[in-house]
């Protein structure tokens, strides 16, 4: 089975937020909320300070705590690519999944159910890239099957140094950042 993931080149990301706007437009994200966002991390000590700009979203973890804690099964692994989705009419809005996510990637939609990034599965199933990937002006975002050794994302991970976010949380995130 495929395992969909993203590889994001932090050397190319300029934090323009095109991906954020594209996601909001594509998925009709309510005003004041976002499924993806830009994080800027600066670390080090002068004069050796490093800055990383990256676009973040749900990591579609392989061991997703949001799925295991959901009392109704609304949060689930989708058949296609192991993407984590939420069935709106099964979600009771208990917010356990929000509390269980180390990335704080979920929020309560004004209609009451919990919402998050879907990797634009409706586009992916038609063979298209997620909206955020397709609009990126610096081509810093790559989407594909991490289990396919010949995919674009697997090749990038073979050729470059990378990291994931909070790997120590043990959720096996499927978004990787090239450094």
């Amino acid at each position, binding site marked *: 089975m495929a395992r969909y993931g993203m590889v994001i080149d932090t050397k190319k990301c300029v934090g323009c*937020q095109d991906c*954020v706007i594209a996601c909001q437009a594509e998925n009709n994200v309510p005003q*004041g*909320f*976002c499924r993806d*966002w*830009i*994080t*800027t*991390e*600066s*670390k*080090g*000590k*002068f004069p050796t*300070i490093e800055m990383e700009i990256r676009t*973040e979203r749900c990591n579609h973890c392989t061991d997703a*705590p949001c799925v*295991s*804690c*959901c*009392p*109704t*099964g*609304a949060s689930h692994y989708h058949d296609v690519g192991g993407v984590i989705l939420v069935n709106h*009419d*099964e*979600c*009771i*809005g*208990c*917010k*356990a999944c*929000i*509390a*269980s*996510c*180390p990335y*704080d990637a*979920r*929020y*309560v939609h004004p*209609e*009451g*159910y*919990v919402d998050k990034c879907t990797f634009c599965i409706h586009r992916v199933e038609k063979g298209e890239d997620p909206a955020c990937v397709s609009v990126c002006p610096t081509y810093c975002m790559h989407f594909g099957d991490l289990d396919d050794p010949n995919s674009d994302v697997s090749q990038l991970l073979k050729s470059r140094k990378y990291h994931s976010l*909070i790997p*120590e*949380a*043990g959720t096996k995130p499927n978004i990787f950042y090239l450094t």
Partner: protein
Amino acid sequence: MNEITTTRHNHMIDPSLTVWGWEIPVYLFLGGMVAGMMLISGYFLFKGRHKEDNCSCYYLPYMSIILLSLGMVALFLDLEHKLYVWRLYTTFQITSAMSWGSWILVLVYPILIVNIMMRPPKIVEEKLPILKEWKNKLLSHPLLIKNIGVLTMFFGAGIGLYTGVLLSSLGARPLWSSSILWLLFLISGLSGAAAFVHVIAKNVYERELLAKADNAFLIVELFVIALFLIGLKTATEVQANAADMLLFGDFASSFWVFVIGFGIIVPLIIQLLAVNHKIHHTPIAPIMVIIGGLILRFIIVAAGQYSHWYALN
């Protein structure tokens, strides 16, 4: 230097998690109290104390049902998609503590109703004479009553430990990543229930017994809190930081003053003096214990949401 800025601005997520307000701590507190009451009531049944006419095992099940129902109302109020609450009972998710809890709560009601059957309300008994027959049948089988006592204790312990497991199963919040949070909530529920029964018990023996038991529960609770904090301090950096929030940080003053001070140590001293007949029993100490238990839940829920893995960076 390590500075993180984000453009994310989701309601109840940023700048720090606040998805659970007053409803969850109130539910956890009432659930703990009910757990403690069921353990006490079940123990009295098991020991055959139902033969005493004014045994608290006759009215604790009523109070348990009322408090548990209030807790479930609080839980319901917390839901954001309220009309879909029935979805909880169309499935059983084995890995979800909340799914376990929702089914345990359903099983607890029949147990409490069986407890009530031993002395149903007089008005109901007059209208439904069959209840009197059932009551007499129940009371004529001591072994059956013992077994009801064991079941009551079993499900009481189930609710008590579930309230802690619910939080500690959410590993993304370092403060809750403790394997003894269930024990802390269970013992806190027991001490709160013992304090409550101590105040309302009509039977003098039970009042004295529960005052002594409450002192023991409070001492054990102090040890469990110490172990809880030591466990966090000696674990990962993020868990140590989470413990610091209670020990020295934003939640320290309310934790030390209201939970440890006025919630455990002061009532413990008052009750130790009372059971040694140095002063008279007053409801002050038990009320302090009960309020301390409520504040403990508020602090653990709020501080837990505030604690985060990013504190590592």
